[in-house]
């Protein structure tokens, strides 16, 4: 991760990290490939791929239905679906594929970088704000900050900040630490030849499996919390 040089490049006056851009593109292509190839030859009587895709859609819609009123779920369904798939594959990518080029990492989990997770967190909160204004109008939307009483305002505003940070950093922390431990175990495995290899490789495999599980849980949690934050904004607080 942060050992070794970080490869960056400049574009339009902004600095980009090569690792994030390349892994982001990889995840982008993976998600698109999965969705594209499972949605071919749609039929009323679904076949294998369509079944899987529909199951996935039902699953993410189910997450959203947990907190958003059922009649509003359809407007956030696509967001929840894309978010879940993107985060899930991002979390898994680094567990199976870590590429280094000239000493700098270029492919790893994008979600092991806080800027990526905070970007998604920010996107969710922006969507929540937008949906709140769209559904309730400016007046009612901002009146929600003054509930249950006027002096609650600082806490409400502070809450937005904490929501933003906790939502983004939770997933980052889990994925980052998971990858870091993978690297540590691998370092241990290669440190004293065959003897440490025999001991460390099973541990590495176990940790990989556990991280895969954690990655799935974190993607699920992220979408769940997103729907909770959105639902808070599209309802008038009592």
């Amino acid at each position, binding site marked *: 991760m*942060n050992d070794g040089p*970080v490869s*960056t490049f400049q*574009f339009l006056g*902004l*600095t*980009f*990290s090569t690792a*994030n*851009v390349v892994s*982001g*593109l990889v995840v*982008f292509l993976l*998600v*698109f490939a999965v*969705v*594209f190839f*499972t*949605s071919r030859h*749609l*039929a*009323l009587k*679904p076949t294998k791929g*369509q079944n899987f*895709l*529909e199951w996935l*859609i039902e699953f993410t819609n189910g997450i959203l239905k947990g907190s958003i009123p059922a009649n509003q779920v*359809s407007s956030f*369904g*696509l*967001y929840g*679906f*894309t*978010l879940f798939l*993107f985060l899930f594959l991002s979390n898994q990518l680094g567990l199976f594929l870590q590429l280094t080029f000239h000493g700098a990492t270029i492919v790893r989990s*994008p979600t092991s*970088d*806080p*800027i*990526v997770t*905070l*970007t*998604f967190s*920010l*996107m969710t909160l922006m969507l929540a704000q937008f949906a709140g204004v769209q559904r309730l109008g400016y007046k009612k939307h901002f009146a929600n900050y003054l509930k249950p009483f006027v002096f609650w305002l600082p806490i409400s505003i502070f809450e937005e900040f904490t929501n933003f940070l906790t939502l983004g*950093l939770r997933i*980052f922390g889990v994925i*980052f630490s998971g990858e870091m431990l993978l690297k540590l175990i691998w370092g241990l495995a290669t440190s004293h030849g065959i003897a440490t290899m025999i001991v460390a490789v099973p541990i590495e495999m176990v940790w990989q499996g556990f991280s895969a599980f954690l990655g799935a849980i974190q993607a699920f949690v992220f979408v769940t919390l997103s729907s909770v934050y959105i639902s808070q904004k599209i309802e008038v607080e009592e």
Partner: protein
Amino acid sequence: MLSHLVAGQTLYFGDSLFYIVCFLLLMWLIKIFAWKPVTKMMQDRSDKIANDIDSAEKSRTDAANLVAKRQEALNASHAEAQTIVQTAKTNGQQQRDQIVAQAQTDVQTLKATAQKDIAQEREDALANARDDVADLSIEIASKIIQRELNADDQKALIDSYIEGLGKQHES
């Protein structure tokens, strides 16, 4: 500022922009290629299932109605058949009785007519026989008389006749 806050890592805000663009593009592509057709298909399916359930319910009630109607018709036809047989039986009975009665009266009339005819014939035959006997006896008598009647007798007869005529005048 924020770039060194987290885990001592350097944050590159270009990435943020890149991920937002990536994500929105991905969402748009998914919407076009998968989301719309798949959700439409799912909606179609749920509609179809609802319709199928409704139509199944409808055909079930239709079938039940039809069965009830059939049963009713069957019962009605049973009853009808029974009445038809009954009517035919009574008709047959009636007709038989009628025929027998008719035959009896016919026989009676025939018998009566025959008896009358026989009586008539006998009467006629008797009358004929009587006439014949009378004629015969007259013939026989006239033959006998012709042979027995000689000139004297004829004269006496004529006389008596004339005498009779005279008596008739007198009276």
